[in-house]
């Protein structure tokens, strides 16, 4: 459904834009309907840049991003872009700053209605809103007619997902949507993503937290300095990490029932086999090697 093929993004940096920073380097991946793909990486790995390019907020410097067969950079004009956003929507990290504090929180629904469904009658629209709220498991009585400061972060975040569901979306870009939520409500939003997946939605789930990436996703992509370090089915990537960087990252994740010392001792006792990593001499391309079926490793960046 969504396909990125050899996508690059180069930013101009420095006082006069003289410097170049390759934020995304030769990334190719796909998202199918009903599939959750986690983009996992530390800060500066390019994970949010990929999300923003898919949403059309940035243009890739090279490569193609296609959605249902159309190259999204060829979408021009207001009407065509609007059609694209009818099918692809994003939800971002900070739910508190997505709402205008002067207006009631459900105004976000009205905004969708006025730009996409101006001819829908009040009754039909109300049913649609209630339906979307039921999907995100919010009680309409608790959230409709309230101001943003009266709602919790988890409720606001779910309102934003409900807003996206009012449109006929096929792909949701979820950029760090739970990092600002409390532990007790985090899991509800994650479970909601799993529900949406069962309804056939494709989700690009951007996160820095490996345990959250693991919980919902079918496919994991670990990024490092803009390039893919490892990509494959989530269970394989987490059970048998092949790239040295993924192994290092996994050994640093604080776990609930094992201490770092235990994890290190275990690694020491059974040192993993090394795999041959692909090399790239030009500093631009980032080839992948298929080490197992559907399980790829990327270049070694030291």
């Amino acid at each position, binding site marked *: 459904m969504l396909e990125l093929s050899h996508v690059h993004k180069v930013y101009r940096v420095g006082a006069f834009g003289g410097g170049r920073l390759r934020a995304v380097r030769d990334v190719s991946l796909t998202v199918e309907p009903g599939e959750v793909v986690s983009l996992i990486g*530390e800060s500066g790995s390019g994970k949010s840049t990929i999300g923003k390019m898919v949403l059309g907020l940035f243009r890739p410097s090279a490569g193609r991003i296609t959605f249902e067969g159309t190259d999204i950079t060829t979408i021009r004009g207001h009407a065509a872009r609007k059609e694209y956003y009818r099918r692809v929507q994003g939800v971002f990290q900070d739910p508190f700053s997505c709402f205008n504090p002067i207006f009631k929180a459900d105004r976000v629904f009205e905004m969708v209605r006025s730009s996409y469904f101006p001819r829908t009658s009040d009754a039909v629209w109300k049913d649609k809103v209630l339906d979307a709220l039921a999907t995100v498991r919010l009680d309409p009585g608790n959230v409709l007619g309230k101001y943003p400061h009266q709602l919790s972060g988890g409720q606001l975040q779910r309102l934003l997902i409900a807003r996206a569901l009012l449109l006929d979306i096929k792909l949701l870009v979820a950029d760090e949507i739970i990092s600002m939520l409390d*532990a*007790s409500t985090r899991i509800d939003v994650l*479970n909601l993503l799993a529900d949406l997946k069962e309804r056939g939605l494709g989700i690009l789930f951007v996160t820095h937290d490996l345990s959250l990436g*693991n*919980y919902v996703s079918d496919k994991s992509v670990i990024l490092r300095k803009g390039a893919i370090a490892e990509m494959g089915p989530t269970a394989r990537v987490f059970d048998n990490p092949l790239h040295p960087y993924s192994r290092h990252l996994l050994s640093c994740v604080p*776990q609930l029932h094992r*201490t*770092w010392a235990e994890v290190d001792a275990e690694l020491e006792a059974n040192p993993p086999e090394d795999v041959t990593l692909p090399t790239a001499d030009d500093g631009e391309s980032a080839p992948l090697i298929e080490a197992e079926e559907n399980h790829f490793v990327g270049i070694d960046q030291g």
Partner: protein
Amino acid sequence: MTLRVNDLKVYYQTLRGDVHALDGVTFDLADGEIMGLAGESGCGKTTLGKSLIRLDSRMRHVGGTIELDGKDVPIADDNAMVPLRYHEISLIPQYAMSALNPTRKIGRMVDELLRARGVRPADVADELRRRLELVGLDPDVLNRFPIELSGGMKQRVVMVISTLLDPSLLIADEVTSALDVSTQRAVAESMVEFRDRGYVKSMIFVTHDISLVYQMADTIMVMYAGHVVEKAPAGTVINEPRHPYTQMLIGALPEVGTTTVQGRLEGIPGTPPGLLDPPTGCRFKDRCPMAFSKCSEQPPLVEIEPGHWAACWKTG
């Protein structure tokens, strides 16, 4: 016993009345103990950390006492606290990365800070360099501006500065929350190292990330809506929590290796109560599946086994 906090009450003054952010908090912290302080946002964990060093203008000390190394800590008297700050009690603030003065080179900033506390910078200069090396920084960072350092480096610089005078108590407020996992581990491990070397006698590590606290703390204290709900050795809180809130909180954490295929985890329904007009009795009773009639009275924090404290009628 390094620190003894007894029935501490600190309220925030607002136009609509007092917010009961800390409502009777009691705990002890032993020498050499690293205590992880965990809870959801708004549970009072940051307020507790701040109360031990400086009340800001909106905070009011309503009751309770704090004792450090056998001496009373006069938190309500701002001037009397001055000699204690930095020398005895030190804090790494929540956004330590922005705690450095952007207009000063780090070395100069440290000198100014030390002079303000009545310490001659030359007396501790060698120690400062040694400790910077210990956390893996080149002492050359003293000649640089904060903007030249990465987030993890700034965090470690702040950590070294805060502990330079060997305080008895260090309060670390969400120090690793803004860092990447690998930097997070390095910072957490250097904090343990500082305790092991005796640079700080004991530490309160405030965080919302229970799995991180489990990696480094000796004990964990869980707070909910201004009350302490449970305090116990780290392993006990994770593996055998007794308070229903702690049990549900730990049950809601996904781990590496947990997937929706193996069964879904559940969150805690509802939201924490507002503290402007807190409910009577147990503050968790509205979200608690085990609540019964007695929960309308406030459960006391009792020691259910040595070193394991919980505040729930069902565990007592």
